[in-house]
């Protein structure tokens, strides 16, 4: 009824309601199918469905590790093993008295959480291959210990799995138990995924340096994720033990680990729905393709290779119809500097970052050789010089990526520690990068929201359970990000995947992301590179306006015109040393600089 007589605003409302439904329709269908499954009255399908749900409980957690954080945990089956044996051994009374199966299942989750963190520890310092090897090695060890520790695990003969009493007794009751837990796991991980923690994980995966500059502390976040993924793996293990009715070490194969892992990648990194579908498909497929069973691992491997090489986005990308709609051609970026007043806190106080006698070597090369520099609030400070003169290196020292060999760095007179790039956000020092560090798979809005991660109040648990504080965080971050995007003139692209944008737009997105910190100091690394003349002019106006709101700007740039147009002071570097410093007018008159860089 409303459809036929709708006025224009009502229709707009309807489309957004439809848009929301479009995103949720797959979940609704999946949920209904899951709830209605017992109506089929076919317990063979029931067993397959139980298995799919159980595998998904594990994969849901693993999805945060692999799909979101990009940590290559190939051997996560070890968490299933641990959870299965813990639950089974406690429920069977192999350790002390017989536990209630539900309590034993919870204990399996706790065990998984503990070992999830232990196995995850190397990932805090080392990425990828080392971590992959660690998880693989751990999976082997767990099986060997299960074989050797006969009193608890029954050794090779194994141990009976728990049978859950009412209301989740074997059969469809147990199916609903698995289904509910899978739904809860989905809900929790989806909450994490759509919170600032989820965005931070994806940022760690695709733009680790930018994540650090935005104040994201990788170790703390990853430990939380490993804890959750381990716990879910352990719970899945307890359910698995019950489904199998009897567990032996040979039930926990490497192939199973590969299955979990590939299901997530087929589903698509950074998606929740995709990996769910991937897990269901890979669990059910071998049952219906019996002749291919011998080749199943081979086919998984082919699938994995094909996904990596051809569709890195997986199923989720194929289902992402929204981002196939064409974008407007010939888009213009028109910053609205008048909005800056709301995006930045105008401060009257004078702040400064003072570098004294900074020196830094790379091997035998002196990258910076005794540099003094002062950045003051409300000013644009230009840093120019030929390639290799130490401009970006200076910026990296200030943002904590390099530790200089000598020298001091003070913020408002107090020592500012070297290193700790993720701590810069708390000093409200923001930056951009020479090549934009953007999460291509996330939307423009999400990319900008990453910049405001430190402003969030909700804890990981609050985010996981979508409690009010997290919802408030999200609302505030979203508003601030929209405002930042409007300020740089890109709000119309908020929902577009960032990797669909032009290079110049990425530069402005980086500035919007930096603005999310409400920075006291903003460091821009060649922001004009790749921009058209018109865009450079607008960029200049934007930078100038930012500084007039009280933010101190350090501008590394090659475009002399831009530097001389907007800078209040300029430092010229050569071979890591200051060649000249002063107002643009003084520099323009500096003979050495003119002859060397500016041309006659």
């Amino acid at each position, binding site marked *: 009824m409303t459809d036929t007589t709708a006025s224009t605003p009502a229709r707009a409302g309807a489309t957004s309601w439809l848009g929301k439904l479009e995103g949720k329709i797959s979940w609704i269908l999946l949920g209904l199918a899951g709830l209605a499954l017992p109506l089929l009255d076919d317990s063979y399908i029931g067993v397959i469905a139980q298995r799919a749900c159980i595998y998904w409980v594990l994969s849901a957690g693993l999805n945060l590790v692999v799909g979101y954080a*990009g940590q*290559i945990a*190939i051997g996560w089956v070890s968490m299933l093993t641990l959870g299965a044996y813990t639950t089974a051994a406690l429920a069977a009374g192999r350790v002390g008295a017989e536990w209630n199966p539900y309590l034993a299942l919870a204990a399996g989750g706790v065990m998984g959480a503990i070992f999830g963190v232990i196995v995850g*520890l*190397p990932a805090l*310092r*080392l*990425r*990828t*291959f*080392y971590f*992959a*090897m*660690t998880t*693989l*090695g*751990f999976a*082997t*060890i767990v099986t*060997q*210990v299960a*074989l*050797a520790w006969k009193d608890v695990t029954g050794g090779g003969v194994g141990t009976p799995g728990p049978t859950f009493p009412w209301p989740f007794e074997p059969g469809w009751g147990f199916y609903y138990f698995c289904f509910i837990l899978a739904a809860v796991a989905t809900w929790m991980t989806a909450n994490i995924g759509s919170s600032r923690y989820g965005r931070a994980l994806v940022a760690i*995966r*695709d733009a*680790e*340096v930018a994540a650090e500059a935005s104040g994201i502390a990788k170790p703390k976040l990853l430990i939380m994720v490993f804890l959750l993924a381990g716990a879910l793996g352990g719970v899945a293990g307890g359910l698995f033990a019950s489904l199998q009715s009897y567990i032996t070490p040979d039930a926990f194969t*490497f192939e199973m680990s*590969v299955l979990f892992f590939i299901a997530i*990648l087929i589903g698509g990194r950074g998606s929740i729905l995709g990996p769910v579908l991937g897990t269901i498909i890979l669990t059910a497929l071998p049952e219906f393709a019996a002749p291919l069973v*011998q*080749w199943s*691992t*081979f086919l*998984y*491997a*082919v699938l*994995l*290779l094909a996904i*990596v*090489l051809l569709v*890195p986005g997986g199923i989720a990308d194929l289902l992402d119809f929204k981002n196939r709609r064409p974008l407007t051609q010939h888009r213009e970026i028109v910053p609205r500097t008048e909005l800056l007043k709301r995006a930045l806190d105008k401060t009257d106080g004078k702040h400064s970052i003072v570098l004294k006698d900074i020196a830094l070597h*790379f091997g035998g090369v002196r990258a910076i050789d005794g540099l003094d520099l002062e950045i003051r609030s409300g000013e644009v400070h230009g840093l120019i010089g030929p390639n290799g003169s130490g401009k*970006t290196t200076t910026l*990296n020292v200030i943002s904590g*990526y390099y530790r200089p060999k000598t020298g001091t760095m003070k913020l408002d007179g107090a020592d500012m520690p070297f290193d700790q790039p993720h701590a810069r956000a708390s000093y409200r020092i923001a930056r951009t*990068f020479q090549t934009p560090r953007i999460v291509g798979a996330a939307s423009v809005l999400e990319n900008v929201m990453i910049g405001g991660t430190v402003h969030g109040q909700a804890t990981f648990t609050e985010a996981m359970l979508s409690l009010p504080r997290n919802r408030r965080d999200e609302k505030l971050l979203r508003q601030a990000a929209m405002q930042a995007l409007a300020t740089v003139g890109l709000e119309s692209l908020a929902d577009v995947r960032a990797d669909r944008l032009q290079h110049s737009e990425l530069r402005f997105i980086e500035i919007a992301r930096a603005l999310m910190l409400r920075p006291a100091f903003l460091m821009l690394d060649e922001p004009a590179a790749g921009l058209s003349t018109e865009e450079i002019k607008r960029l200049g106006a934007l930078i100038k306006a930012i500084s007039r709101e009280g933010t101190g700007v350090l501008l590394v740039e090659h475009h002399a015109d831009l530097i001389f147009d907007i800078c209040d002071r300029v430092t010229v570097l050569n071979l890591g040393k200051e060649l000249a410093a002063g107002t643009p007018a003084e520099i323009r008159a500096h003979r050495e600089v003119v002859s060397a860089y500016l041309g006659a």
Partner: protein
Amino acid sequence: MFASIISYGLAVGAVYALIGITYNVMFSASRVFSFTAGMLGMLGGVLGALFIKDWGINAVLGFVAVLACGAVLGLVTEILTVRPVLKNIEQHLYVLSTLAFALMIQQVTAIEYGTEAYPFPVLIPIDANSILAIVDQKFWLPVLACIVTIVGLEFLYRRTLIGRAFLAIAEDSYAARALGLPETRLRMASYALAGVIGTLAGFTGAQMLLAFIGNQPILNFYGFVPVALGGMGSNRGAVIGGLALGLFQQAANFLVGGIFAAVAVFAVFIVVLLLRPEGLAGASAARRV
């Protein structure tokens, strides 16, 4: 018993060291750790047994054929699984693509050749009374292969022009390309070389480790441990780490039994990684920004 620890330990250690070098040669050329290293080791044994024992090819020809297969697999690895994902190396997709390729080869081997451990022929007919027979050839062959490889690599890298080009790529591929070095071709050559070294490890070690599909994961892990301990890219580190690992494992086997050895190696691996991520002898990490 002491002699047994030493002979087996050094022989197994030499195989680990060679697999470690295989990892390193690929890593130096591309900054990529490839899961194909263990696969090459496994195939060295399986293909050797297939060619020499099953098809009756002469041992020398069989040896050359195995190494040639290794080189071809190295090239395929580079073209199929490494080059396409190299431009986004910070996404580390190579871990997945090389794992997928290694799993594919492993599965084909399992189905076509079998999952049991098969014997490997005795390669060199040695008179039981000759000096060479004092120590069984299954012990000294991998050690000899390891020595030849490390000396050969040192010679290649230090004394020849192409070797220096390899080193230049390993140091700084951007700069090397700027100098006009054919980076892609050098990378392919490195992968072919890694293929040869990996299959050489498997071939010379197979009288001891047998022609066995299960060697793939074992060599993948235990071949990587010396790289992690010795520092990535360091061949000398890999040799020292490999031999130490082999001796430690054998000693533990003799003194306390297998499972404790496995747990101990894993614990050492984790602790070293946590305390010195760059390895015991490695240099600190490269620039990131």
